[in-house]
């Protein structure tokens, strides 16, 4: 009886040791939390140079007292043939093991992007720590390393700040979009090509590294989202800007909200229309071996500003503006498709769509799809609606013709 009780006690003790299940435990103070990664080509070698932006926990604490005067982040980099090798090699420099579950941003250097990005994402899929919904950007005219070092005003963690920037502009301006690793992998494995938003440092990037830079109203270096990088066979070929970039997103059905300045009879781009709903349907078919791309855009918006007199209480005037809006949207869409056709880069997933809807026809054309894509005919239809004029109907400006 006594022996049995003893045995039970021992068993319970052993069970207690197992039940804490801390075999895999890693304490918070043993981790270096990585918020962003920059991937560059190592100079003169076929290796990656990987830069990690790491949170400095003591200076991000919300209580003012704990502030140490250090910047909120620190940066380590390492070079290796594989990304995983580089991230483990960083242990030589870092006092804590890198922890990747909070990595929200991956910046790819322009050189890297031009020499090909197809093979870099495997580790993101395979690892359980790295997240597939991290945002990807291409550093424009610069290496990713220098982007990772720049401190931002307002946002204490620069990687998060950059992610917020791209999301912000994607949501209301619509020339760029937040593209995740997951989308890129799907783009690479699919039949089309990918686009990635660019980021460019405006100003002096050496100053941008310093904390002192933040102690002024206008910082000396500010990273800004700039352009949409078009890839072909995994290599960056060109940047699209302005309305061409917007047109790309329009055709891809990724416009959330955007603004279009439309022309009126008298003056150019003088009425601002705030588009707050947009939907695009695409369809692809083959006619005598040549693809025809049907793009159907529906958009709705309201008038936000007008620079001259216009009788906005008159439904016919609104109808004219709607027509003009549709025309300008159509032009932007066509320009962007033609730009992609010049590059022979199917960034609109037309190939995927053809494969999905008409797999047999796709089989016949898949070999030389990129040249067929370039010859493809366009059929763009736009339905534009203006639903409101804001808080006023007529503007306060008087109609010159009447006052005379």
């Amino acid at each position, binding site marked *: 009886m006594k022996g049995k009780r003893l045995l039970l006690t021992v068993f319970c003790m052993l069970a207690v040791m197992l039940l804490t299940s801390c*075999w895999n435990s890693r304490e918070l103070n043993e981790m270096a939390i990585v918020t962003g990664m920059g991937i560059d080509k190592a100079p003169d070698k076929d290796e990656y140079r990987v830069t990690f932006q790491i949170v400095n926990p003591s200076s991000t604490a919300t209580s003012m007292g704990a502030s140490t005067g250090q910047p909120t982040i620190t940066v380590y980099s390492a070079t290796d043939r594989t990304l995983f090798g580089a991230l483990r090699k960083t242990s030589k420099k870092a006092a804590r093991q890198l922890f990747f*579950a909070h990595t929200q941003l991956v910046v790819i250097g322009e050189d890297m992007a031009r020499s090909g990005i197809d093979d870099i994402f495997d580790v993101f899929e395979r690892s*359980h720590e790295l*997240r*597939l919904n991290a945002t990807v950007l291409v550093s424009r005219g610069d290496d990713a390393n220098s982007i990772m070092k720049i401190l931002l005003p307002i946002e204490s963690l620069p990687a998060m700040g950059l992610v917020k920037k791209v999301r912000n502009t994607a949501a209301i301006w619509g020339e760029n979009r937040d593209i995740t690793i*997951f989308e890129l*992998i*799907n783009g690479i494995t*699919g039949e089309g090509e990918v686009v990635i938003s660019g980021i460019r440092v405006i100003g002096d990037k050496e100053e941008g590294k310093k904390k002192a830079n933040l102690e002024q109203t206008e910082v000396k270096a500010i990273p800004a989202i700039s352009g949409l990088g078009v890839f072909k066979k995994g290599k960056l070929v060109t940047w699209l800007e302005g309305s061409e970039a917007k047109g790309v997103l329009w055709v891809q059905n990724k416009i959330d909200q955007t603004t279009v300045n439309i022309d009126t009879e008298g003056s150019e781009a003088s009425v601002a229309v705030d588009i707050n709903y947009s939907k695009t349907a695409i369809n692809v078919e083959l006619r005598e071996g040549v693809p025809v791309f049907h793009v159907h855009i529906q958009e709705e918006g309201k008038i936000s500003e007008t620079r001259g007199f216009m009788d906005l209480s008159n439904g016919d005037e609104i109808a004219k503006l709607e027509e003009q809006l549709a025309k300008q949207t159509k032009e932007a869409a066509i320009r962007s498709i033609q730009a992609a056709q010049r590059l022979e880069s199917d960034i609109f997933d037309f190939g995927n769509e053809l494969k999905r809807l008409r797999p047999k026809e796709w089989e016949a054309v898949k070999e030389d799809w990129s040249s067929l894509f370039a010859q493809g005919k366009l059929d763009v239809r736009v339905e534009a609606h203006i639903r409101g004029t804001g808080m006023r109907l007529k503007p306060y400006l008087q109609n010159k013709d009447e006052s005379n």
Partner: protein
Amino acid sequence: MRKEVIGTNQLFAMIILFELGTAIVVPIGLESGHAVWLSILLALPGGVLLYLVYHDLSRQYPGLIISGYTRKILGRTIGWPLSLLYIPVFMFNGSRNLREAGDLLIAASYDRTPVFIINAIMVIAVMYILNKGLEVFARTAEIYLAVIFVLGFICSFVVIAAGLVDFKNLFPLHAADWRQAFRSAYPNIWIFPFGELVCITTVLPHLKESRLSGKTGVGAIVLSGILLCVTHAIEMSVLGEDVYHRATFPMYTTITLVNLANFIQRLDALVILTLIIGVFFKMTLYCYAAIAVTADLFKVQDTRKLAVPVGVVVLFSSFISAENYPRHMEEGGVFLRYILPVLCAVIPILLFIVHRIRKRFGLLR
């Protein structure tokens, strides 16, 4: 010893948890392209018919489990060795589930914990509950069914609410897709997970109201088939065909993509919990079936004594059977193609036919 009795609700819960088990987390029907959800629906009627065969045999021989009526129908000389085959297969299948769970847990979060420790902890739980008996197991199943439903509801809700579902990945279905879906439905999905229910034949005699076993079982199978179909359709629609087929653990990848308002994210724990619960019930039922058949064939009075030996064999065969996960999957393919169909479908259907013939011609002793 008192005969253990379970209720219809408990049987219902057991069947659903068993069906969902591993099938809900691992990619199934690998040959069916984006129409995997369709192949599950196509395999469902087959699964129901197969269950009706098991159900009918058990109704014809009340109180007997599969090894019992095999001997009655085919005679002792053929029936005994044939029933003996079920023991290693049940145990091996249980060990395969354990292996899958262990490997997925290591890949997904316990990267530095030895597989032995993870598997051993799960097997200890299984041995414990088998030692407590079928009634306890059935009651646990009833409780965990609710847990699984809640988890499943939360997971599907957040995935849909996060706007990740893209129906383009599911449609359209061309004639070739239907053919492919049908090919992967029969026999693959028909056998795994539906045919695996052959283990439930060891539980059916314990049902309090045995006349309800048909209705309950069919209900449970249809519901679990629909749940599987919806879950895999969601996974496929979120991940796309390519990622779905390359993923070892598509459900986990799906949930990691959720980011609802920058606030609801990293819900991986829910999926890990689903995996552990599902595998626990599936493995326990396999072990229970192995124990029941062993006890019946070798006339062991106290079945609980067999819990530890069966558990230990399952634990060790779980990692001896394959040196790595790809090998394990390869073995699974062979096992699913050549061995399981014989035991899950061919033998029961044969028994059913032989039984009918003997009854017809009055050859029943």
